[in-house]
């Protein structure tokens, strides 16, 4: 797609990384340009999550280069420009926290040590409304379902008004209603110029939003798929898998249902 010749937001070249003694990334090239939505696909253990965590400086690179917003990692400090949605952890925290409290912590990157002001409260409220959790703002996070919890983590990232969203498996264990909210939220973020890097198991309801899918295998980029091929990829994310064919068909079916409702939803809001 020629429309994304903007500056690279993420430029990863020849990246290698290890977890303990195991070489996980064996030379990854990955570029995400301004306004672009890129999906990272691949089987378990292919290095998707490690790639994302390397981009976020949570896994040190043993080789290669990383630039964020055109700045080499060593000199990069504008972390508030990045919104991170980690894989939903099942481990609950030891002390209760309300939905609003968790979402507000996404604002600290911008505020640092200054107290939160009116602008911050508005951003938190806006993020909660966008993911449809405003009515549950005062509820404890522990009482939410898996899908609702995922939406809390997304709202936390959005509260910081990021220019780049990085999401690790946002669809994992998420009910249909929350998948629709996710697709709608992503569309809104892309519309306001946000770049997105997503780790996905299958494209599902997000397929129409994605500009490029990068398929990883054994720590290397196996292939890069452009939009015209994405429909096939949504059906068969890992090439010709011996099992799960009907399963994959089922996934794309549910994806379509979710998408149609999501579109109706966004039109109704406009």
């Amino acid at each position: 797609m020629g429309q994304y010749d903007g500056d690279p937001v993420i430029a990863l070249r020849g990246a290698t990384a290890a977890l303990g003694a195991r070489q996980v990334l064996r030379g990854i090239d990955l570029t995400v340009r301004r306004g672009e939505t890129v999906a990272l696909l691949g089987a378990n253990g292919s290095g998707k999550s490690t790639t994302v965590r390397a981009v976020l400086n949570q896994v040190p690179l043993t080789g290669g280069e990383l630039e964020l917003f055109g700045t080499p990692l060593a000199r990069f400090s504008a972390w508030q420009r990045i919104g991170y949605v980690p894989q939903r952890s099942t481990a609950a925290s030891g002390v209760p926290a309300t939905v609003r409290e968790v979402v507000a912590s996404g604002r600290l990157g911008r505020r640092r040590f200054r107290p939160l002001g009116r602008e911050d409260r508005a951003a938190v409220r806006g993020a909660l409304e966008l993911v449809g959790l405003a009515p549950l703002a005062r509820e404890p996070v522990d009482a939410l379902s898996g899908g609702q919890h995922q939406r809390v983590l997304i709202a936390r990232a959005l509260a910081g008004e990021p220019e780049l969203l990085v999401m690790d498996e946002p669809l994992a264990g998420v009910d249909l209603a929350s998948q629709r909210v996710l697709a709608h939220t992503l569309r809104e973020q892309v519309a306001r110029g946000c770049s997105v890097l997503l780790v996905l198991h299958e494209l599902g309801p997000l397929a129409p939003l994605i500009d490029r899918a990068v398929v990883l295998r054994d720590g290397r980029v196996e292939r890069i798929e452009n939009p015209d091929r994405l429909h096939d990829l949504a059906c068969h994310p890992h090439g010709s898998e011996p099992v799960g064919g009907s399963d994959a068909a089922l996934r794309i079916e549910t994806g379509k249902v979710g998408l149609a409702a999501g579109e109706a939803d966004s039109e109704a809001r406009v």
Partner: protein
Amino acid sequence: MTEMLDYAFMQRALLAALLVGITAPAVGIYLVQRRQAVMGDGIGHVALTGVALGFLLSTNPVWMAVLVACLGAVAMEVVRWYGKARGDLALAMLFYGGMAGGVMIINLAPNGSNANLTTYLFGSITTVSDSDLTAITWLSVFVLAVSLGLRRQLFAVCQDEEFAQVTGLPVRLLNLLLAVTAAVTVTVAMRVVGLLLVSALMVIPVAAAQQLTRGFAATLGLSVGLGVLVTLSGTTLSYHADVPPGASIVVLAIGLFALVTVLAAPLAKHRARSVARGETEGTLGHSEGSDRAAATHRTTRV
């Protein structure tokens, strides 16, 4: 009942108890949130070595305990960063080393014996001196400045350390600050509840409060309230029953915890219902039955 207030030592003891009741839960809540509830215990054991060093060098044991406890807490934090040893094993080493070091050093000190340590191990209201009270007051100011002033930052770090790091917060600095603050709190509390029971006061009020609350700020507020309640009543009980204050305070705290646990059961049911209601009121009323069942299940577990 009020005649105890005529004694200067009781006025000092109650003031110290008040400060401990506020500071211990205010710091303890972050340790509980991070599932490091026993960290206070580890620091307490290390502080014992500091107390003994104070006797050996004939300096104020409180300040020496502050110094040694801070070093121990920082060491624990460094071990956690580099993951060189399993966290629980590193903590265990500090427990044993702190206790053994304390007993060894106190017996090397001139006129020193294990008896000197008893007031530090279990607390003693009659021996809180004016200079102790001054030290406790200044240390409490520091502890509250950190635990309340930086509560959003510390909350974010303890809730999800990786996210806090990605968002640009100085996570290592905040972790170190929390470790030092916990160490200072332990030494503030040691004259009142004693080093062996100090951790109880950092943990039990939080554990009791969180059964009644939905959010972090509310838990912080209520646990400080409960902390003050048990330290003041425990100190009073200690005066009348002539037992070490550490024991009476902790026994009262556990009693309060049990009481709250019984009272909280109906509340959990109500809370589950209100979450289900909030979901249907919201723009997304498509929550599936299984979702709701899961929410109910999770809430009642608390």
